[in-house]
């Protein structure tokens, strides 16, 4: 019974290794259409996505590199400027120091001169006053001495010449005793 059915079935089926023409044709057409879609649309799109991605990554890397170079250039320029400024400052400081020193020197000289001048003037004035004092003192002393002498001597020494002679002699004595 079962063998009969099996036989019947396989007769109906035919050998499975014999391809059915319909299936071959459907396979050919279905696959051809799929192939056309893949070739015309899917593959180019994926390839484009890959290319875009490569571009994006590579472009990004190039941009980063460029930015880095720019930053390095900027840093170098800043450093140059800074060192320039330092040099400038150093120069200015030295100039200022030199100027300061010159000014101090000048001031000192001036002060010295002023001091000398003042000292000299003071000295001259003192000398003049002393001279005046001496002269005045001498006259005073002469008068006092004469008065004293006339009182002592008791005689009026009206005679101008004598009086003056007496005074001179007294003064000469005075100086000689000194």
């Amino acid at each position, binding site marked *: *019974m*079962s063998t009969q*059915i*099996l036989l019947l*079935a*396989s007769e*109906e*089926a035919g*050998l*499975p*290794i*014999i*391809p*059915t*023409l*319909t*299936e*071959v*044709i*459907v*396979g*050919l057409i*279905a*696959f051809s*259409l*799929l*192939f056309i*879609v*893949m*070739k015309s*649309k*899917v*593959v180019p*799109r*994926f390839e*484009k*996505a*890959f290319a*875009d*991605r490569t571009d*994006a990554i590579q472009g990004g890397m190039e941009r980063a590199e460029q930015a880095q170079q720019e930053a390095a250039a900027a840093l170098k320029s800043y450093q140059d400027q800074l060192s320039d400024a330092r040099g400038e400052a150093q120069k200015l400081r030295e100039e200022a120091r030199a100027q300061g020193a010159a000014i101090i020197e000048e001031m000192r000289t001036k002060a010295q001169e002023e001091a000398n001048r003042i000292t000299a003037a003071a000295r001259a004035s003192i000398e003049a006053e002393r001279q005046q004092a001496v002269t005045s003192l001498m006259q005073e002393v002469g008068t006092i001495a004469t008065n004293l002498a006339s009182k002592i001597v008791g005689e009026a020494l009206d005679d101008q010449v004598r009086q003056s002679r007496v005074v001179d002699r007294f003064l000469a004595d005075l100086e000689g005793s000194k």
Partner: protein
Amino acid sequence: MNASTLLASGGFVSPGSHDFVFKPLFGNNILFTKPVFQAILAAILVAVFFLISSRKAAVVPSRTQFFGESVYSFVKKDLGEDIIGHEFMKFVPFLFSLFTFIIVNNIFGIVPFMQFPTMSRFGFPVALMIFTYVIYHYVGIRKHGLGKYLKDIAFVPGVPKWIYVILTPLEIATYFIIRPFTLAIRLFANMFAGHLLLLVFIMGGDYMLHNSMVLKIMSPLSFGFGIGLTFFEFFIECLQAYIFTLLTALYIAGAIADEH
């Protein structure tokens, strides 16, 4: 299809080639059967999926695009570039279509409500084999010219002259008969046998469930095997799609290589 086996009241009718024969889906149109429908559906599904996943072609891919790209990159790199070499790019669309079309048709074998691997109908592997066959001979002839291409096949360089007596018929048979035949057969037979194996365990379990108590108790074992083998079939289905595409790439690489 199971009607004929269940009809055998009492004895168990083992699944066989009759399980691969389908009635027309609509009316009497004998051309439009389930496998034919599946083949067309697979082509549409693959085309639509990859059109959607590649629609934006964005630099930062969505999940769908990423999956589509992964499959595409796998075929392009592992089956195209690594095997064919520097001329691989013009074969990528073909290899890609081949791989995706076969794998989807194969996986139909374990998809619920379909549960029939399209490629277990010999006509479909034959159709794909025809593409491969035509393409690898065509690119070989175009690259080397007809005379040199045939000479390179028939007379392998670097062997003693008398060996050609044996080698030349073998080489010719290899390139023109054995290769296409084995390529189609390998895919067909794997799918056929895998489906048959699943049928044996599932239908066997079903038969046992409707029989004596002892067999009823043992039937889960059979179903269990059926489920385990379903996973195994999934692996085989992917593997066979890979192998078919890999061999196609190898044949193309051989045809356009400078030395055979």
